[in-house]
């Protein structure tokens, strides 16, 4: 059901029956290593290119999600996924292996929640029985495409962020045990004219603020309704800026309640500057870490706001500002809480 202009509420209660999360060596060394299904010691994942290793991780995440559920792969109706690489080849090539009908998406790092929102919409509207929804990114493949070669010794400013290597996948169904997707607010493209690709948190913060504000208005709930409001990859600067803006606009969000996936995934002391980023960041941390907390009963209602900056290397070189987007999905604990 549409609430307002861009919020869906899912009254048929689509359930996340299982998830699959895959991480790389840097993630294995991080803060939430125990929340991963598969961790790789090698950035290459035994493949001969970084792009192929990203594809491999996406396949593994999807397979892990299906394996942990009670259904067979053949029962999956759609695979909805996206990533940051040109023409989203890792997702599309993974879809070839997974061999189920595929919808490819691109919202940069906001892809994870765009795909979860659409998957829930499909199931809620009787368009599918089982949907796999995922996102992936690879540090070296992303650096290569958007910035400099991996081994190049250029100094990054303190506002730069570290792209996560990994893939996260959620399997949604009409019913079953697991957290319930209750609503989604789709974002608008927000452009405040920022042009620095080494400060994406600052560029993405207004998009997050816009989506969060709209979500509360259209869904008609107060911020205290959620235990946690989880942003995708705003990092230190984006988190601080967006929280201050939200509070300025009269939303009563506490600092404790407002967490960022990009600040959760790595340990203090890992050289990630302003925090983590990447399409896999919000996917892994939500599907791994936060849904595990929900299963344990430590949290019951969360709003995940994945943020993405929609620039390309070409647009940056041509001097265009960085347009950003944020998609929000609310997840609430279901019947499986212990």
């Amino acid at each position: 059901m549409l609430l307002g202009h861009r919020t869906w509420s899912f009254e048929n209660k689509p359930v996340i029956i299982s998830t699959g999360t895959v991480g790389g060596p840097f993630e294995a060394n991080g803060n939430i290593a125990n929340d991963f299904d598969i961790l790789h010691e090698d950035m290459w994942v035994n493949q001969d290119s970084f792009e192929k290793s990203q594809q491999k991780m996406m396949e593994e995440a999807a397979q892990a999600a299906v394996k942990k559920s009670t259904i067979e792969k053949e029962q999956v109706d759609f695979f909805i996924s996206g990533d940051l690489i040109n023409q989203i080849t890792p997702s599309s090539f993974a879809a070839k292996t997974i061999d189920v009908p595929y919808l490819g998406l691109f919202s940069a790092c906001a892809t994870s929640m765009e795909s979860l929102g659409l998957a829930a919409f499909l199931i809620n509207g009787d368009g599918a029985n089982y949907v796999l929804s995922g996102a992936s990114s690879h540090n070296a493949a992303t650096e290569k495409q958007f910035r400099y070669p991996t081994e190049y010794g250029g100094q990054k400013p303190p506002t730069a962020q570290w792209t996560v290597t990994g893939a996260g996948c959620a399997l949604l169904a009409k019913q079953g045990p697991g957290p319930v997707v209750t609503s989604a607010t789709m974002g608008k493209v927000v452009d405040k004219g920022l042009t620095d690709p080494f400060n994406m948190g600052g560029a993405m913060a207004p998009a997050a603020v816009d989506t969060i504000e709209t979500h509360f208005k259209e869904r008609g709930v107060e911020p205290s309704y959620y235990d946690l409001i989880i942003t995708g990859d705003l990092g230190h600067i984006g988190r601080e800026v967006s929280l201050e803006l939200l509070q300025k606009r009269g939303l009563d969000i506490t600092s404790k309640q407002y967490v960022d996936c990009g600040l959760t995934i790595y340990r203090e002391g890992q050289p990630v500057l302003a925090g983590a980023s990447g399409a896999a960041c919000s996917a892994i941390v939500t599907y791994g870490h936060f849904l595990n907390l929900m299963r344990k009963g430590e949290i019951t209602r969360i709003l995940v706001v994945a943020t993405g900056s929609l620039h390309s290397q070409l647009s940056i070189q041509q001097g265009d500002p960085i347009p950003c987007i944020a998609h929000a999905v609310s997840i609430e604990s279901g019947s499986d809480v212990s």
Partner: protein
Amino acid sequence: MADKKKKNLPPDAQNYQKFQQQREVKRPLLKNCLKAFFIGGLICLIGQVITTFYIYFFHFTEQTAGNPTTATLIFITMLLTGFGIYDRFGQFAGAGTAVPVTGFGNAVIASAIEYRTEGFILGVGSNMLKLAGPVIVYGVFSAFVVALIKTILIKWGGL
């Protein structure tokens, strides 16, 4: 030009940029300069040691020892880049590792390694100078301009 662009932005975007800039973590300029000075100086010191080594043991002169010294430094850079150490070093030292010839070497070698997956011709061959290319282009061009000025001054300026 950046300022001109900024003026064309709607006021709320300008306000946001101001707001954001106040909260942005700035580059620690003084600290970076000091680090660059000492690390850059250290690399030059190593270069000087190598030069002296070539002069004393291989009978190079001060003029001819430059090339083997540069080659040696680039060779060391190649190893450090290949083992994945140079980029961490670069994050710490900034301009200290970028300005000396080692920075140039790193830019070429890092690109060559990175594009190996696209093959030797279209990958390594066409991308090797992706980062270092501009340095060569504008280095040669500015050398040409300086040489032109020098020639004019000597021929007609009476120097």
